[in-house]
């Protein structure tokens, strides 16, 4: 069938429509045996559908044309039963969401050995042996991870290893990994990527790595395919495409992905806020109040969650999510807070916003104490506002934009008239680059990037001095992210805003902040000027974080 013996997988002119809506348009590419092909694209580019088309696991109502050849099989013509034999034995697949990709009511041993027993004529014992070996190979040794474990007993990274074990248990020739590390922390991501690379080399796997992250692809792939709006815009050898992108879209994508630190003028005048010298910073604030007026000052903050009782009559235990955290943010400053999931950064956001009660410690905003929700004065609320991560979940879908944006006006001491509300809403919408007449639309009429602009508008309407950006750009595509980051720069400059920029993404934090704090297990393990911390991390954890983060590096 194929004149090129090296070709493992070849797509030719694949078109896909779901319920008549075109999804893929003339997609063609080729993967050679034992090589890695990176497919990059933003959300809606059709990269995941391409993977499902190869697996022939498309949703109902799909119509496909074009040809897909895999190792001598014409996948697009094969009967379902023949496809079932190929899936899991010759082609394995790894998905984005490890938390939901495993059946919660079956043990990990069952789920891996099922794949073995399905494709190999082996006894249960032999299948269990193969399962044990496979789990060892993906880094889950039997002593710590017996086959009888259930998925909920494992962390996200460990679950992703189980999913990989399912995919490679029958030694496939092709492995498709669809955003395998997007839902994981940086350090975990590094481990999974290393594992994929190792498996690929050892087994001479053909690997398709689908991702939105150019940095990930640059460290893994031999060839890349760039997709946009359901079509392939550019493909070729990795270095060639990276060094000399031919297509406009590719160039834009690369430009938006390559975040370099913007030179900001140093704002900190306080000697105590010097890098890594903070232990006695708080003590001096009161005495030097005339010199330094920190806008937001947090000292010895402790937040705890009550845990369910261990035994029937034992007293409930507690979990310390924030453990003696102190810092301050000055007017006009951009402060970063980096940490992996579970480090306490979202608890900190909630505590700062007065959405949860503090165990001990103080939060002072412009000289006024902020302790718990009910006590937060409206003047304090005016000073500090927030932008959340999820551009879809952060708006009531039943209200129009005008009402959504004007909601924080509730904190004003007086009730503004309709004309004033309208004036403020249109002002603030135009300041974030939206049109004034957008206020009569519902939120579902806007894209993710536009929604995040509206969220920023909402946070600015009461004229705050500091905005907490809680993973505010993490859900956005790189091209949109670049625009939103630019908007944040402009706003900071125009309105003298201070930011507390909370993120798991090192490259973004490096791009937008003046100072940065690194958080782990509820404690701040390192802090200092952003440039210094990234250039010369002192704490072992910071070093691990920075070295684990994939870098867009082609030299």
């Amino acid at each position: 069938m194929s004149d090129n013996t090296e070709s493992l997988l070849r797509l030719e002119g694949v078109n896909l429509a779901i319920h008549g809506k075109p999804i893929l348009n003339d997609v063609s590419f080729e993967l050679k045996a034992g090589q890695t092909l990176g497919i990059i694209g933003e959300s809606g580019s059709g990269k995941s559908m391409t993977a499902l088309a190869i697996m022939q696991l498309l949703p109902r109502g799909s119509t496909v044309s074009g040809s897909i050849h895999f190792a001598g099989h014409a996948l697009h013509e094969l009967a379902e039963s023949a496809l079932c034999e190929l899936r899991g034995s010759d082609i394995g697949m790894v998905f984005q969401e490890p938390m939901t990709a495993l059946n919660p009511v079956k043990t990990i041993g069952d789920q891996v050995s099922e794949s073995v027993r399905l494709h190999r004529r082996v006894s249960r014992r032999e299948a269990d042996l193969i399962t044990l070996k496979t789990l060892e190979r993906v880094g889950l040794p039997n002593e710590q991870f017996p086959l009888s474990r259930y998925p909920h007993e494992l962390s996200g990274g460990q679950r992703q290893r189980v999913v990989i074990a399912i995919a490679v248990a029958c030694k496939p020739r092709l492995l498709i990994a669809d955003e395998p590390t997007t839902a994981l922390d940086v350090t975990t991501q590094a481990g999974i990527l290393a594992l994929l690379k190792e498996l690929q080399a050892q087994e001479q796997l053909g690997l398709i790595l689908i991702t939105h992250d150019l940095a990930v692809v640059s460290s893994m792939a031999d060839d890349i395919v760039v997709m946009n709006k359901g079509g392939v815009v550019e493909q070729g050898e990795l270095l060639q495409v990276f060094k000399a992108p031919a297509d406009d879209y590719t160039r834009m994508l690369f430009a938006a992905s390559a975040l370099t630190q913007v030179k900001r003028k140093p704002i900190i005048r306080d000697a105590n806020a010097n890098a890594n010298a903070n232990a006695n910073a708080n003590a001096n604030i009161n005495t030097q109040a005339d010199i330094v007026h920190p806008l937001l000052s947090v000292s010895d903050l402790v937040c705890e969650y009550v845990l369910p009782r261990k035994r029937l009559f034992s007293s409930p235990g507690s979990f310390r999510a924030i453990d003696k955290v102190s810092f301050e943010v000055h007017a006009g400053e951009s402060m970063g807070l980096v940490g992996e999931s579970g480090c306490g950064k979202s608890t900190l956001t909630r505590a700062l916003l007065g959405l949860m009660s503090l165990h001990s410690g103080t939060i002072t905003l412009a000289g006024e104490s902020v302790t718990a929700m009910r006590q937060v004065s409206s003047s304090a609320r005016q000073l500090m506002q927030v932008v959340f991560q999820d551009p879809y979940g952060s708006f009531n879908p039943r209200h129009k934009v005008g009402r959504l944006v004007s909601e924080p006006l509730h904190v004003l001491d007086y009730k503004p008239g309709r004309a004033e509300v309208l004036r403020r809403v249109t002002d603030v919408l135009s300041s974030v680059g939206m049109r004034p007449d957008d206020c009569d639309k519902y939120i579902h009429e806007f894209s993710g990037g536009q929604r995040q602009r509206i969220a920023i508008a909402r946070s600015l309407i009461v004229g705050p001095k500091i905005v907490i950006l809680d993973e505010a750009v993490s859900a956005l595509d790189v091209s949109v992210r670049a625009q939103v980051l630019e908007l944040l720069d402009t706003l900071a400059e125009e309105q003298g805003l201070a930011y507390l920029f909370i993120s798991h993404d090192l490259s973004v934090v490096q791009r937008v902040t003046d100072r940065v704090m690194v958080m782990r297990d509820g404690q701040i393990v390192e802090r200092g000027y952003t440039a210094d911390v990234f250039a010369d991390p002192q704490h072992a954890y910071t070093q691990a974080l920075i070295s684990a983060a994939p870098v867009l590096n082609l030299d």
Partner: protein
Amino acid sequence: MNWRSVVPGAFLLVVVIVGALCSFIWTPFDVAGLDIRNKMQTSSAIHWLGTDHLGRDILSMLMVGARTSLAVALVAVFIGMGVGVPLGLFAAARRNSWVDELIMRGNDLVFAFPALLIAIMITAVFGPSAINAIIAIGIFNIPVFARLTRGAAMSLWTREFIMAARVAGKGELRISYEHVLPNLTNLLIVQGTIQFSLGILAEAGLSYIGLGAQPPIPSWGRMLAESQTLITLAPHLALYPGLAIVFTVLGLNLLGDGLRDWLDPRLRRER
């Protein structure tokens, strides 16, 4: 909207409602008028659906009976919503507090009493009546709405738009009313039609065993009870009231299904 289910559903329901409303002004015959000479007739030009064992016109009785059925079930839904929804909202706003615990345990308790047992208890003490049927079915509806509301409200409370409202300094009650409740209306409308149709069935059952509306108020359930001893002589006496119940419940369920498809944005987005 799923027209294949809404249109027939709405049609059946409109027929029943029009019949019920019409009976306030006009019925073919007086439902209290006994006419022993013309008892147990089958369908004819005069008595479209025939007459019962006392010579009363069945169509007229069905029309008046529809009134009872609809009224009892509808008021019971309002009782369930009126008490259950605020309880659920409150439990969600103060989740994991003792208030929440108390409300949910109370709910469990009512769940342990099927509507019929509540009706039996009320009847044992106060005697049977349509009001008792309403109260029994209404009490039964309360935990249904309370649980539904609490569950849905709890998941809304974790959403970021609620956090945004809290950052705007709004209180729990105001957020419940302004942000949570409007996002529950679809769910409540759909559950309302389900409980409405269950209420029709429950009312029929209660009046069948004599715990519902008392004579001389006609009700579908009692018509069936009276037909039972005559079932070999005049099966049509059992047929028509039964069909009336089936059509009403079917109409409500079809309408509810159609509404759910239409109102559920998750389903709508896929179209």
